[in-house]
């Protein structure tokens, strides 16, 4: 069917082949037949062939080479989707021979106009690197180039490639650091995760520790309980710590991501805060982490693990949320155990009674493994908090009469550990356990009891020999571990109470001598030599008592998560508690801050970044030429032209000369989209309503020079109301818009305004690029006042960044009618450039275009409503200046010119 001429049949056949691949069956013998279809026009068929190729090309390298030329052609396709998918497949087929072709393709794609193709190029870098690590140096060049990319689409992928190929080249990040921080919010969620973890590592090497002293972090529990005064004192002692503004920027730009719906993003922000933020700021992650606990089972598992690690170091963080860690009977066992772990970590004197009550419920759980874990947890609480040791012990002793073996066994083991800490007071418990001994069958528990009796045989002199007698009877039926403990018990009793137990000990040692297990035989031999006096072993047996009955240190019950903090939170290594392949250590803070200035990007540098854009335009021009030469492709190109945003504008222009213009044109449009942030200027406030006319209500407005949030075509206006009257004004709102043709976005009504108070609201007005005033009625509950906002011509603009080249190109297009100019005489003191800049910017909301010449100043902006460009150029001469304004809207142009004239001719 693959050979068939009908496309539908081919497609059907290909679908079956993909079905085979999916099932894991070998379909490689179809390779030649499939490869033939790689040049097919049908997109779905093509995709399926790609799937097949990627799967089997590695096995059939020679045949796979047949398809390469098709991809090379597709790499030049005007449709960006086809370009991207061709690069994807080309880089995925893992045939070493084509490495140079891949390298070339990647380099070309890295300067493609479409960010989607550039993103694919970033992915291809990793693939090529895994295929041929020798290309590293060339690839790093491409990464360096792509890191400079401003598109949010590319950022995530290229950082991923960076992490894979050259994670140690931290110097590549410096210049892009601030950009990455600022873009972070808009990067797609998967990219965010990668970027955040990279920035965490970066920050650890570049900033100094925000934690006050070394070592405080380790005993942060203590620090937490320290009273505020103490803290202040310690802060005074050490040199005041000032955080690097870049460090602060990172923290600030990641904080909103805690609200992400993607759990991986939240977790990575949490680990960033954990590893980088000053201690008092870490707490903000708590709430978000607790929220994640509502998610799927697997997410819970990972999050709980991380919380477990955090809760060891900083109890205070999660204590208020303790109830969120209460166990439900429907939780999976590993989730239950983790919650238990956290509850144990969080327990302290204040909350222990609630925790213990909760534990009591868990002990009764039908899930016996969990019940056993709970008992261990109780044991840990008991050792950590000495006040409750007795209560816990009593509770555990009660559990000894439980019917379930595992519960009893676990309690015995825990009791043994607890008793070791304070044996003398609890001889009655030991007696009780000895009584229960007959009923307990779990070997570990029996062994524990035997050990206890042996260790503290002096406290229970009557019972111990009796237990030994029982053991002697059942010795051959016991498990190995019990036998070993029996031997120890016998030896200890022999030493303390040899009168009663001499014969019993002999008997047990004889039994042990012929045991099947060599451990037991060895132990028996050793003990015999040690305790039974003989001629040769006399030297040791003197010390036997000291060897066997030496006081033993109590075991320390501690969390299994104690040592996990050596790994970065949220990583695979942390989850597994062992180093995973490719794990990158988080370095310690540097003692001295490295040079901060490496991150500075000068303005000139920023401008240089536009030149690649021009370069790109050129390269795409040559692409087009390629197509116009190969005539057969033209039809397809024309078909695609309407669809493909970028291919479209190129495809429709045929002659090479026109093409260059249109390409440049588009670059300029791109430039215009780049709104720059407004320059800071002193705020001019205008009066909207005087307090006399407003009967106590005064209103002022100013133009905030920010892009309006309500609508792109609106100008945002900040209104400040103040109540100068003596009674509360209620319900201040805009009632009717009297002026026609202007769209006003009202502020939400102010419910009430107390006397002597003022409030600021923002509203949006679409002035339609005219200076006509927007009039409306401002109402309070009682009255209405007619007011109007008069826009200055300079406020109708939004600043735009562009390079000098683009500026002159644009200016060239706005000649004749669209140009208005004037000469002005200037006072000598205003000749230096700084006041001139300042004056223009104060008057109008324009962006400064960096200029090569000292006496030429250029400014660019666009009209808010129509988006038309407004270009201002000031050329200084000896005593005057030539002022030129170019814009499509001639009325605005002349008004602006007039205003600028007056402003500039005034002295500074």
């Amino acid at each position, binding site marked *: 069917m693959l050979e068939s001429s009908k496309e*539908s049949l081919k497609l059907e056949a290909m679908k079956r082949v*993909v*079905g085979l691949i*999916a*099932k894991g069956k070998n379909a490689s013998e179809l390779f030649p037949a499939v490869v033939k279809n790689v040049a097919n026009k049908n997109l*779905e068929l093509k*995709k*399926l062939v790609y*799937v097949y190729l990627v*799967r089997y090309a590695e096995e059939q390298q020679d045949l796979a080479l047949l398809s390469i030329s098709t991809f090379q052609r597709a790499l030049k396709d005007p449709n960006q989707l086809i370009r*991207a998918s061709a690069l994807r497949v080309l880089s995925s087929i893992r045939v070493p021979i084509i490495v140079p072709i891949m390298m070339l393709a990647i380099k070309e794609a890295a300067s493609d106009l*479409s*960010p*989607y193709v550039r*993103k*694919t190029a970033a*992915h*291809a870098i*990793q693939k090529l690197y895994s295929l041929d690590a020798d290309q590293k140096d060339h690839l790093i060049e491409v990464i360096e180039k792509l890191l400079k990319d401003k598109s949010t*689409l590319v950022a995530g*992928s290229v950082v991923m490639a960076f992490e894979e190929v050259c994670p140690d080249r931290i110097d590549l990040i410096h210049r892009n650091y601030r950009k990455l921080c600022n873009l972070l*919010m808009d990067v*797609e969620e*998967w990219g965010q995760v990668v970027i955040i973890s990279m920035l965490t590592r970066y920050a650890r090497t570049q900033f100094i520790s925000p934690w006050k002293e070394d070592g405080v972090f380790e005993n942060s529990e203590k620090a937490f309980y320290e009273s505020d005064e103490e803290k202040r004192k310690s802060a005074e002692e050490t040199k005041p710590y000032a955080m690097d503004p870049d460090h602060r920027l990172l923290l600030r730009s990641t904080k909103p991501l805690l*609200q*992400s*719906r*993607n759990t*991986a993003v939240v*977790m*990575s922000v949490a680990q960033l805060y954990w590893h980088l933020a000053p201690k008092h700021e870490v707490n903000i992650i708590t*709430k978000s982490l607790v*929220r994640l606990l*509502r998610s*799927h089972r*697997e*997410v819970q598992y*990972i999050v709980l693990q991380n919380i477990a690690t955090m809760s060891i170091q900083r109890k205070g963080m999660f204590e*208020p949320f303790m*109830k969120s860690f*209460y166990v*439900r*009977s*429907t939780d*999976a*066992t590993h989730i239950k155990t983790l919650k238990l772990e956290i509850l144990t970590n969080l327990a302290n004197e204040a909350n222990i009674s609630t925790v213990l009550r909760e534990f009591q419920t868990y002990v*009764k759980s039908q899930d016996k493994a969990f019940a056993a874990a709970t008992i261990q947890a109780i044991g840990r609480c008991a050792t950590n908090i000495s006040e409750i040791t007795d209560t816990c012990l009593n509770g555990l002793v009660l559990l000894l009469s439980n*019917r*379930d073996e595992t519960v009893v066994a676990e309690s015995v083991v825990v009791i043994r550990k607890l008793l070791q800490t304070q044996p003398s007071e609890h001889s009655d418990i030991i007696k009780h356990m000895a009584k229960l001994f007959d009923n307990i069958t779990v070997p570990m528990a029996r062994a524990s009891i035997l050990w206890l009796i042996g260790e503290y045989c002096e406290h229970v002199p009557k019972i111990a020999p009796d237990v030994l007698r029982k053991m002697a009877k059942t010795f051959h039926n016991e498990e190995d571990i019990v036998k070993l403990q029996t031997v120890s018990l016998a030896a200890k009793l022999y030493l303390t109470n040899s009168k009663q137990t001499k014969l019993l000990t002999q008997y047990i040692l004889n039994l042990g001598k012929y045991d099947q297990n060599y451990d037991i035989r060895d132990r028996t031999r050793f003990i015999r030599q040690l305790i039974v006096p003989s001629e040769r072993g006399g030297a040791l047996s003197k010390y036997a008592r000291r060897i066997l009955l030496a006081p033993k240190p109590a075991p320390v019950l501690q969390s299994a998560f104690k040592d996990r903090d050596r790994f970065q939170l949220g*990583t*695979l290594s942390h*989850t*597994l508690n062992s180093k*995973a*392949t*490719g*794990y990158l250590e988080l370095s310690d803070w540097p003692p001295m801050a490295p040079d901060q200035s490496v991150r500075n990007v000068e303005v000139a540098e920023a401008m240089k970044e536009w030149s690649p854009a021009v370069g790109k335009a050129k390269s795409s021009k040559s692409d087009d030429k390629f197509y116009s030469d190969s005539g057969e492709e033209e039809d397809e190109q024309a078909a695609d032209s309407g669809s*493909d945003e970028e291919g479209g504008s190129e495809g429709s222009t045929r002659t090479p000369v026109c093409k260059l213009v249109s390409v440049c044109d588009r670059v300029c449009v791109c430039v215009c989209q780049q709104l720059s942030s407004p320059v800071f200027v002193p705020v001019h406030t205008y009066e909207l309503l005087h307090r006399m006319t407003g009967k106590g209500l005064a209103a002022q407005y100013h133009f905030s020079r920010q892009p309006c*949030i*309500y609508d792109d075509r609106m100008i945002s206006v900040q209104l400040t109301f103040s109540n100068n009257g003596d009674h509360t004004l209620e319900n201040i709102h805009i009632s009717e818009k009297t002026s026609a043709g202007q769209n006003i976005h009202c502020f939400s009504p102010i419910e009430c305004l107390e006397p002597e108070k003022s409030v600021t609201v923002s509203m949006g007005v679409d002035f339609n690029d005219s200076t006509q005033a927007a009039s409306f009625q401002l109402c309070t509950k009682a009255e209405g006042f007619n007011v109007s906002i008069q826009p200055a011509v300079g406020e109708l603009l939004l600043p735009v960044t562009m390079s000098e080249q683009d500026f002159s190109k644009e200016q060239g297009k706005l000649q004749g009618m669209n140009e208005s100019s004037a000469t002005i005489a200037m006072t000598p003191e205003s000749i230096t450039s700084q006041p001139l800049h300042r004056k223009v910017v104060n008057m109008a909301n324009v962006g400064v275009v960096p200029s090569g010449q000292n006496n030429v100043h250029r400014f660019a902006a666009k009209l808010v409503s129509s988006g038309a460009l407004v270009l201002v150029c000031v050329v200084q001469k000896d005593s005057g200046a030539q002022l030129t304004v170019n814009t499509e809207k001639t009325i605005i142009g002349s008004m602006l010119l007039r205003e600028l004239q007056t402003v500039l001719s005034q002295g500074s």
Partner: protein
Amino acid sequence: MIHSLFLVNATGDIFLEKHWKSAVSRSVCDYFFEAQERATEPENVPPVIPTPHHYLISVFRHRIFFVAVIQSEVPPLFVIEFLHRVVDTFQDYFGVCTEAAIKDNVVVVYELLEEMLDNGFPLATESNILKELIKPPTILRTVVNTITGSTNVGEQLPTGQLSVVPWRRTGVKYTNNEAYFDVVEEIDAIIDKSGSTVTAEIQGVIDACVKLTGMPDLTLSFMNPRLLDDVSFHPCVRFKRWEAERILSFIPPDGNFRLLSYHVSSQNLVAIPVYVKHNITFREGSSQGRFDLTLGPKQTMGKVVESVLVSSRLPRVVLNANLSPSQGTYTFDPVTKLLTWDVGKINPQKLPSLKGSMSLQAGASKPDENPTINIQFKIPQMAVSGLKVNRLDMYGEKYKPFKGIKYMTMAGKFQVRT
């Protein structure tokens, strides 16, 4: 990143595999099967399993294990979150995510997986974008495709992929413009033996179904936004605006999506809308146990508690239960020991109850724990946290949309310990 993906069904067969880098042998799953055997319940399989050369990260949903093979360090949540996104996408495309559905649509599944990951790194996971790249299968489209020979694969790069609003496609047109919002709150609670609340918290979501023409810009404001102090948003919500004004301002994706989810934590007081009176006793020695359960509403603000379902796993020694419900039906599965009682509506005048006896295994001692009772219920037209939407405004388009909002309270993980 993600190397390969294996789909394993409940009986332990691999029924689909996909590799993004060079193929990994199926035998890597043996480690997974080992872990699966060790865990008694499928839920107990650990999500992360280390093997000598790879790491397996698995997700269990719809009775299918999605096992991802990883080779090097990666945040595990990254993989888990992605796998869940895959499941969501399948569900979105095929309506259900079962083994049969995946097998029937294996080609679409393959095309989807190919688009979602490139070299193991997520490429497009937004359902709006995927749907433009690969059209979901419908009966109508299959018929049309066979006749006209057109394909399921989109020919162009989705516009959303490049724009600043990647979640919304351009050129949306509807004759009826409508925007519906559902505020759904779930109560998670543990009630102890005596009826007092051990812990209770509210998990709320606002799900939206927005079918609006063009590029509408919506704002949603609340009467009491202070309740929402712990929220997570769909990427479309403008965070700055929320921070400053506590107003949700967003350009919505087309179709169904989750606008935000929030969490009202256990520190706030939560009104528990139902109470349970229970008396479950086992007597030592006799082979009988008594079972007595009564449900009643409280603090429901006059709303009706609907679709009540009580379930409980009785101790292993219970052989059978002989009960009589005052309303609804009950079933008892003697193998899994699961008792379920479908109650329906609770009538405050005549409280539903389930009474009777249980027969126990002869000679077995009495179980030391009473079973936990899980309750499900729904209360329409009420948001238990008291959250209220103030108004919804639309900017950017001229037409007037239909707007609707619905409230609902449900039981989440609602357990009563006895």
